[in-house]
């Protein structure tokens, strides 16, 4: 694969120049499905699958070409050794390129969408005279040169494609998961009354997400951003006959609008700050070079942060995400776990210089982005503890993981954030589709406590893949989540010897907490779903292949994708070819960040990996998982059908938690008692050991379990439901009573309104004329 690009350089630029085909194919499929879908034998699903497959193949080719080009660009600098690998000649390059080199510059192709100006000062196509970056060599249709002179800039808007590591990575993720979700959906929504409509929207969603990913201008980004919002609205409300679902769709849409205001304002600020340019490249370059004042960048970054908060479910605008689980499960997997919700994270990455300079990430200790990310990952994780609904656990987990990504980006761990986005997409899609499979088996219920339990015996494939996804999410080595999580924690620069962009102590603590919590709540979910005894009514059954095959593929990906970015030291220790080290970082780090490195003022560094940190973080996760496991195991021993302790009432009220603890301890004294009696024949040392085991270890187990559950409940009940919803309700009732006051004026007579309108206007004009 590495030879592919080197040898077929001509084909490369074709792929780069025609990247627009990737979103165009699903868009075309949307139109075809809408117009002809119902008449086709498979109701339009085949068109969607075909188009997304084609887009996927193109995306894969582009990805490999990109990877090859990056390698080729290293070739120029490094001595190339010719080795024989698998009978083929492959070029192994020692990846020892120093930080500081500009590589992987984006390839931008733009055409003018529309422009304004008379013949004299008509802008030539695009804003980038030299759109082609390094690897491509700059063939293809070009623009500015043909038109001759790019004269003084009138107003011009370009639409184009931007191919670089980051967008190529997203192209791959989106088309891959979309394809699997398409296949999965043919089974999952089989017989649905709006089957065709569903597939049309899936196609449109894929197209708009890809369109957004490839945007070369902020305006295009906004268009793509809103398009995915609309598709999300349509798909959450797919079963709109039930009011809950249509409410959830509305909530998602409206919450997103709040953030969109921030997006529009932020982008407008950047447009003017960058000398009236929508070009992302120009904005990034100016931000890096310090041509835009730091204050402006900070305000713009804050505005954009609002957009990220709504789209990527950050605290306090995260509330729509769990509700969005009202949509069909494949949609949740595609949109609300893997792709759409990461749009905000992606946008941060795309405009990273703006955030990096605006928030002063280099050398900082805390900033808005890192703080919001940290808050979100802890808050989301706590909420995941108290959900009954399997999908909601995953939804809050998504919130928490998105917080992780934002946290990483906020700490300057750019690659780590995007790498987590990459790995998270696979294992979270795997988990969501697994949850869908479970619900498919349990007659469309997601209630873990009422309808699940013991499913591992009935659904071995789903169970196995779900376990892999869980382990990956919890960050157990060597699965995908481990590598990305570790990189994020390293990126905080707190742990000795890591040297990040700053010393982000508080975000680091948040990150460690989340690492532990993730393992804990996923253990709880897994136990309730797959272990214990089955609590449902009818016999569950394993899902058909169209559901399990995507699961297996995703589980496989969840295992392997982490290896794309192994630290150098690790690779050396295993004596692997050095090209495996930090491959993802080399592929993805785009020009925007690479140029940082050369700027002394904006020092952007990579943190150094730390084995001890990895061990501690994994230990935390394992420990937390083990505690919860024990909690439920004990519960099972007590009553196979139980899902919580019968005296759990106490844990619901935080004040009674202390009393609860005492109660629990009494119960454990009984255990100790039997333990002591049972071990009466053993020596005093054994007895003491037993006592320690039963009393202290179990006490800790119990305490942690109980406290985290009650904190979670507290947050859910009082913060989420109480404060946030309370504020909403309060503003509602205030508006209502004010409305009562004004009611008298509302006669419903149009004439009266018009009279008031014109009369008031007259009075106002008169005031302006005579009094001012």
């Amino acid at each position, binding site marked *: 694969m590495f030879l592919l690009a080197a040898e077929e350089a001509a084909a490369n630029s074709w792929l780069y120049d025609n990247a627009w085909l990737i979103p165009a194919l699903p868009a075309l499929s949307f139109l075809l499905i809408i117009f002809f879908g119902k008449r086709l034998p498979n109701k339009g699903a085949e068109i969607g699958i075909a188009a997304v497959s084609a887009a996927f193949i193109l995306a894969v080719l582009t990805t490999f070409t990109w990877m090859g080009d990056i390698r080729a660009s290293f070739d120029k600098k490094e001595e190339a050794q010719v080795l024989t690998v698998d009978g083929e000649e492959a070029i192994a390059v020692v990846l020892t390129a120093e930080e500081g080199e500009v590589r992987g510059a984006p390839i931008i192709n733009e055409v003018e969408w529309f422009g304004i100006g008379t013949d004299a000062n008509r802008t030539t196509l695009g804003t980038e005279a030299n759109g082609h970056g390094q690897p491509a060599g700059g063939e293809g249709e070009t623009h500015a040169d043909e038109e001759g002179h790019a004269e003084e800039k009138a107003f011009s808007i370009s639409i184009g494609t931007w191919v670089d590591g980051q967008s190529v990575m997203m192209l791959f993720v989106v088309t891959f998961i979309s394809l699997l979700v398409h296949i999965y959906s043919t089974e999952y929504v089989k017989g649905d009354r709006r089957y065709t409509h569903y597939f049309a929207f899936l196609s449109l969603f894929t197209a708009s997400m890809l369109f957004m990913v490839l945007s070369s201008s902020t305006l295009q980004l906004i268009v793509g951003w809103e398009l995915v919002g609309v598709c999300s609205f349509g798909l959450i409300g797919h079963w709109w006959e039930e009011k809950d679902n249509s409410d959830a769709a509305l909530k998602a849409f409206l919450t997103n609008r709040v953030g969109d205001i921030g997006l529009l304002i932020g982008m407008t600020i950047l447009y003017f700050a960058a000398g009236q340019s929508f070009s992302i490249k120009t904005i990034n370059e100016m931000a890096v070079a310090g041509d835009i004042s730091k204050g402006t960048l900070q305000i713009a970054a804050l505005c954009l942060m609002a957009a990220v908060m709504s789209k990527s479910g950050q605290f306090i605008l995260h509330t729509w995400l769990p509700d969005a689980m009202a949509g069909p499960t494949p949609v949740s997997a595609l949109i609300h776990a893997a792709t759409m919700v990461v749009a905000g994270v992606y946008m941060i990455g795309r405009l990273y210089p703006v955030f990096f300079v605006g928030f002063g990430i280099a050398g900082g200790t805390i900033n808005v982005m890192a703080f919001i990310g940290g808050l979100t990952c802890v808050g989301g994780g706590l909420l995941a503890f108290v959900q009954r609904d399997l999908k909601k656990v995953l939804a809050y987990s998504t919130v928490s993981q998105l917080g992780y990504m934002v946290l990483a980006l906020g700490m300057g761990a750019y690659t780590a954030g995007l790498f987590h986005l990459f790995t998270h997409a696979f294992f979270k899609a795997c988990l969501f589709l697994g949850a869908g499979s479970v619900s498919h088996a349990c007659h469309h219920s997601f209630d873990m406590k009422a309808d699940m339990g013991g499913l591992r015996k009935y659904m071995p494939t789903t169970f196995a893949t779900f376990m892999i996804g869980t382990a990956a999410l919890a960050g157990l080595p060597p699965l995908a989540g481990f590598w990305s999580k570790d990189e994020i924690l390293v990126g905080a620069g707190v742990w000795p010897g890591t040297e990040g962009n700053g010393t982000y102590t508080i975000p680091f603590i948040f990150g460690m907490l989340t690492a532990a919590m993730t393992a804990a709540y996923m253990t709880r979910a897994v136990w309730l779903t797959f272990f214990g005894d089955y609590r449902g009514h009818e016999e569950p059954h394993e899902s058909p292949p169209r559901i399990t095959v995507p699961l297996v593929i995703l589980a496989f990906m969840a295992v392997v994708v982490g290896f794309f970015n192994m630290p150098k030291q690790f690779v050396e220790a295993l004596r692997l070819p050095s090209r495996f080290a930090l491959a993802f970082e080399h592929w993805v780090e785009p020009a925007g960040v690479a140029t940082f490195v050369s700027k002394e003022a904006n020092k952007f560094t990579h943190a150094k990996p730390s084995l001890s940190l990895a061990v501690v973080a994994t230990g935390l996760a394992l420990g937390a998982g083990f505690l919860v496991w024990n909690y439920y195991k004990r519960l099972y021993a007590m009553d196979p059908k139980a899902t919580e302790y019968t005296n759990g009432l106490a844990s619901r009220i935080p004040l009674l938690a202390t009393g609860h603890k005492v109660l629990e301890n009494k119960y454990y004294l009984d255990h100790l008692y039997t333990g002591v009696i049972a071990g009466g024949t053993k020596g005093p040392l054994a007895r003491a050991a037993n006592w320690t085991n039963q009393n202290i270890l179990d006490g800790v187990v119990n305490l942690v379990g109980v406290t985290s559950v009650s904190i979670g409940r507290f947050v859910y009940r009082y913060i989420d439901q109480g404060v946030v919803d309370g504020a909403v309700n309060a503003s509602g009732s205030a508006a209502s009573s004010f409305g009562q006051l004004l009611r008298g004026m509302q*006669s419903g007579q149009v004439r009266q309104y018009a009279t008031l309108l014109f009369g008031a206007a007259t009075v106002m004009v008169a005031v302006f004329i005579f009094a001012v």
Partner: protein
Amino acid sequence: MFLNQFLFLAAILFCIGVYGVLTRKNGVLVLMSIELILNAVNINLVAFGAFHQHLSGQVFALFVIAVAAAEVGVGLAIVLLIYRNRRSINVAEANILKG
């Protein structure tokens, strides 16, 4: 020629239009009065365009004409809907917005 003679004509037509909107019950007549108001605005635009020897006045008048066409289309559709539902286009009876 004074600029004001055009502006006064426009002002008078505008006020007549306002009077029509405020007194007419018949939906179609209300729409007609709105057309009158829009035309008064257009006279202003064109007159100022001619005064400043600039084309933008005329261009905006053209835009207003196009918007007026859209407005009449939707407005009549609404009037027809009211008529179908209530067998009357008396806007005085369409008062379900009453608080």
